[in-house]
């Protein structure tokens, strides 16, 4: 950690992390909003410039963990998030190998979070982008997210804690970023072959959302940039709501507000705002389960201490507990498609309701099991 008595210019920039200030997080939110719309413009699915849950589902598909043919693509954005955060944390000396805070619980929370989010068809980042595109169904998703996070704050006020983490070896903390780097290499060695749905061991959708993607270098570049900025600014969409409920703090919320304003403004300028409920891209109109899916997901994010994006950024800076949550989300996304819990544009999956309810109950059990006070 930095000593406050250091005065050289470089150290001042390091010590006073601009991106962690109010102005900084507003800037970061705006850049993320801009990047998301750019990605949409250059090929990512509509209202899905960035979606951590959807993209982890696509990665699960690319790796063959599920075989839903329309959602298979090794999204470089996710790889960039982790590696961008890793680079920023190394440059600014914040890479801190840590872990051991109820890892199994965090892994399960990741599974539940992905399942819940894929009932609504979006993580909190995509919720904001769907709202910015005029998708009224996202109002129910956002409301569900808020309720889920709120329930999480009730546990936090009762002394909920997964316990202290401890220092881990640098080797251990490097494994997840190395895994992500290996996926990047895999992508480069087995790139998409036009007209084919497989390249080496990797699957590539020929149709559907998995086939819609911006050029590789744009996706990776934006992922790296967002990863670095989000690491510096501690950007967290769940924390934005949680801190509002717990402490009436606006700091993180300003980041997501900025993201929304910029994304909405750009969508308006590009003619990409279509207000309504029916016919929205990669979305369904089952309001009750849009709401409930995100209640479950929101509670899982709150109990795990970060939104899906934040978990990736923390994993990049050496947090092995966050890495396990991220891997849990990958597994949960695979389960969602293998077990028929994931939704589609046509509506909820055959077991979406079961999964949402079971996931919520498991989250409640996790919450109660880890409260200190009566």
């Amino acid at each position, binding site marked *: *950690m*930095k*000593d*406050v008595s250091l005065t050289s210019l470089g150290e001042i920039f390091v010590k006073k*992390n601009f991106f*962690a200030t109010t102005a900084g997080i507003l800037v970061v939110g705006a850049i993320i909003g801009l990047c998301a719309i750019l990605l949409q413009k250059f090929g990512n699915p509509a209202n899905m410039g960035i979606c951590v849950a959807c993209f982890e589902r696509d990665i699960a598909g690319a790796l063959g963990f599920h075989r839903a043919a329309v959602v298979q693509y090794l999204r470089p954005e996710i790889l960039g998030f982790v590696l961008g955060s890793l680079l920023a944390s190394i440059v600014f000396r*914040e890479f*801190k190998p*840590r872990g051991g*805070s109820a890892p199994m619980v965090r892994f399960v929370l990741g599974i539940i979070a992905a399942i819940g989010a894929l009932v609504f068809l979006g993580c909190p980042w995509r919720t904001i982008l769907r709202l910015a595109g005029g998708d009224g169904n996202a109002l129910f998703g956002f409301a569900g997210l808020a309720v889920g996070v709120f329930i999480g704050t009730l546990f*936090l006020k009762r002394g909920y*804690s997964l*316990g*202290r*983490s*401890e220092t881990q070896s640098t080797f251990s903390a490097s494994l997840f970023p190395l895994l992500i780097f290996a996926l990047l290499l895999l992508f480069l060695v087995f790139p998409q072959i036009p007209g084919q749905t497989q390249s080496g061991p990797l699957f590539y959708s020929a149709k559907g959302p998995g086939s819609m993607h911006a050029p590789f270098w744009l996706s990776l570049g934006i992922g790296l940039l967002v990863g670095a900025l989000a690491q510096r600014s*501690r950007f967290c969409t769940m*924390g934005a709501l*949680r*801190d509002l409920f*717990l*402490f009436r*703090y606006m*700091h993180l919320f300003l980041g997501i507000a900025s993201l929304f304003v910029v994304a909405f403004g750009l969508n308006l300028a590009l003619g990409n705002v279509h207000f309504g409920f029916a016919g929205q891209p990669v979305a369904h109109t089952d309001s009750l389960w849009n709401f409930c899916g995100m209640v479950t997901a929101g509670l899982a994010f709150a109990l795990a*201490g*970060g939104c899906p994006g934040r978990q990736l950024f*923390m994993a990049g800076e050496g*947090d092995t507990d966050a890495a396990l949550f991220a891997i849990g989300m990958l597994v949960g996304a695979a389960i969602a498609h293998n077990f028929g819990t994931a939704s589609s544009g046509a509506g909820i999956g055959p077991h979406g309701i079961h999964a949402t309810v079971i996931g919520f109950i498991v989250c409640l059990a996790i919450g109660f099991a880890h409260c200190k006070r009566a």
Partner: protein
Amino acid sequence: MREIDTRGLSCPEPVLKFHQALAESPEPFDVLVDNEVSRENVTRAAQKKGFAVTVKNEANGVSRLELRK
């Protein structure tokens, strides 16, 4: 001097512990943090409540935030 130990804890616990300590007594206290995020968050929270925050580095990446009025 009261000491609140937030080492090994991730957000929002350090700030929660700060608020709990404040609720117990308005007397000054120290908060131990072991990462930048906690340092930023606790400093922000303490300054909102009118504390002056002095950071003293200790061993093993731990910092002591001295919260004084």
